[in-house]
C-alpha cells in the first residue's frame, strides 16, 4: 500500500509552495495538457516543454533524485504499454526485431508517446511534491468542482488512512494464521479484505455522519478557506500558460 509518500515532500519551502494550491494545480494541468496535445514528432517543442518543467522543478526545489525516481516508475509503465505501438502501426519497415517488424510510423508514435509522457509526468511529480492531499482538495474547491466531489474527497482522505490501518491489521492477523498458503488461500484472503474494507468504510462513513450531525451539520459542507489568489501567482501562471500555449500551437503551425 503505497500512499504514505503523499505527505512526505509537501513541506519543502520554495517560491512554488508559496503560490496557492489552485495555481499549482492549474499550472500542472496547463503543462500536462500542452505536452499531451503536441502533434506527433514535435521533438523540438517537446524539448522546450521538458526544459520548462526542469526549470520549474528547480524553482520548486524538488531534488533531481526525487524527480527521476518518481517519473521513472510511471514511465516504465508507459514504455511497456507503448511497445505494442512499435509494430502494430503500418508503415515503412525500419528494422526487424526477431519476428516483428518495427515501422517508421510505429517509431514516431512510440517516441512521441514517451516524449509527451515525460513532460506530463514531470509536471505531475512537481505537483505531488509540493502539494498535499488537503491542499489539493482546497484547490478543487477554488476551481468550483462539484461540491459533492470536493466534500467526499475531503472525507475520503481521512477515511482512507483509517481504512488502510485496518486493512493492514487484518492482513497481519490473517498472515500470522496461515503462513505460506497458496494462491487460492491468498485470493480468498484478498477478497475477504476487500469485503471487510467495504463494510468498515461504510460503517465509518455512517459514524462520521453522526459526528457531523452532532456538530450542527445540515447538509451544507462549510469551508474555512477564504484564501485569495495573489497577483504574483497569477502573473506566474499567466506567463506559464502563454509559454505552453505558444509552444504547443506553434508546433501545429509549423507543419
Amino acid at each position: 500500500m503505497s500512499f504514505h509518500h503523499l505527505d512526505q515532500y509537501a513541506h519543502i519551502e520554495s517560491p512554488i509552495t508559496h503560490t496557492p494550491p489552485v495555481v499549482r494545480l492549474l499550472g500542472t494541468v496547463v503543462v500536462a495538457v500542452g505536452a499531451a496535445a503536441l502533434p506527433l514528432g514535435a521533438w523540438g517543442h517537446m524539448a522546450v516543454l521538458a526544459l520548462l518543467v526542469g526549470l520549474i522543478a528547480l524553482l520548486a526545489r524538488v531534488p533531481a533524485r526525487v524527480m527521476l525516481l518518481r517519473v521513472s516508475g510511471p514511465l516504465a509503465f508507459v514504455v511497456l504499454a507503448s511497445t505494442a505501438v512499435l509494430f502494430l502501426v503500418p508503415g515503412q519497415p525500419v528494422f526487424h526485431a526477431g519476428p516483428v517488424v518495427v515501422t517508421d510510423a510505429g517509431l514516431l508514435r512510440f517516441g512521441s508517446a514517451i516524449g509527451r509522457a515525460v513532460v506530463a509526468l514531470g509536471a505531475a511529480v512537481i505537483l505531488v511534491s509540493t502539494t498535499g492531499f488537503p491542499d489539493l482538495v482546497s484547490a478543487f474547491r477554488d476551481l468550483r468542482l462539484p461540491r459533492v466531489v470536493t466534500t467526499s474527497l475531503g472525507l475520503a482522505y481521512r477515511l482512507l488512512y483509517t481504512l488502510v490501518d485496518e486493512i493492514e491489521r487484518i492482513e497481519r492477523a490473517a498472515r500470522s494464521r496461515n503462513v505460506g498458503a497458496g494462491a487460492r488461500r491468498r485470493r480468498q484472503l484478498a477478497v475477504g479484505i476487500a469485503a471487510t474494507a467495504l463494510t468498515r468504510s461504510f460503517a465509518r462513513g455512517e459514524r462520521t455522519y453522526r459526528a457531523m450531525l452532532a456538530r450542527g451539520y445540515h447538509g451544507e459542507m462549510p469551508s474555512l478557506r477564504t484564501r485569495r489568489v495573489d497577483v504574483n501567482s497569477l502573473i506566474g501562471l499567466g506567463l506559464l500558460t502563454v509559454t505552453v500555449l505558444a509552444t504547443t500551437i506553434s508546433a501545429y503551425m509549423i507543419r
Partner: protein
Amino acid sequence: MANLIEITDLAYRYPDGTPAIDGISLSVESGDRVAILGPIGAGKSTLLLHLNGLLLAQSGSVTVDGMKVTGETVREVRRRVGLVFQDPDDQLFLPTLLEDVAFGPLNEGKAPREAAARAHGVLADLGLAGSEGRAAHHLSGGQKRLAALATVLVSRPRVLVLDEPTGNLDAEGRAKLVRLLQERDETLVVATHDLEVARALCSRCVVLDRGKIATQGDSARLLDDASFLQQHRLTVPLGDRALRGSTGTRSPKNPHNH
C-alpha cells in the same frame, strides 16, 4: 430553577425490536458531573445519543435547557450539548485539525475568520498549538482525544457529553485528560466503565443495567461498595468461575432498583 437536562420515561428500541433503553428517568442540574456506568450493551451510548438529539425519543421525553428535544429544536439542542464520541477517528473527519475544530462554529453560521480564530484558541488551550495544519493520522492517541474534545469545546456547549473518553489511552494520556476535564466548568455527563475515571470526574453515578437505571447516587459511596459493583457487573474478579457463571442467569430484578 429547572434542571438543565430532564429525561422522563425514555424508551428506545432498535429497529429489530430489542429494547436498548427501557423507561429511564434522570435529571441533571447545571454544574452537575454525572457518570453513567454499566457493562457494554447496558444502553449507555443509546442514552447519550438522545441527549444530543441524534436519536429522538420513541416514547417519553428529553428536555435540554427547557427545550423538549424534537426535530424542530434539535439544532438548538446540539449547540448546547457537545457530544464526544468513543472513537476520535469518527470525529476528526476533515483533512486538517483546524478544519475539524472550526466545523462546528461554521455550521452555526460563524464567519470563517471568527471560526478559525476560535479554533486556534481552543487548540492552544488544549496544548495542541502548532498542530492546526496537521492531519489527525499524524497525531498520537492522546492528542487525538484532545482534538476530538476541542471540536466540541469550540462551540462553548453548556453540557459536555463524553462516551468512553479514556478508551484506548495509556496511563499518561488518561491522567492528562482527567486533569483537563477536572478544570472545566461545563456540566459533565460521562459514560464509562473506567471506575477510577468516574470517581475522579463525577460526584454522582448512575448505573445502567439492561436498559434501566439500576441505581444512582453519590460516587464515593457507590464506588466503594465492592459487592454492589460486582452485582452490576462493573467489576468482575478475575478467575472467579462461580461468579462469571452466575451473571448470565441472574434475575433482572435486583434490590437496588427503585
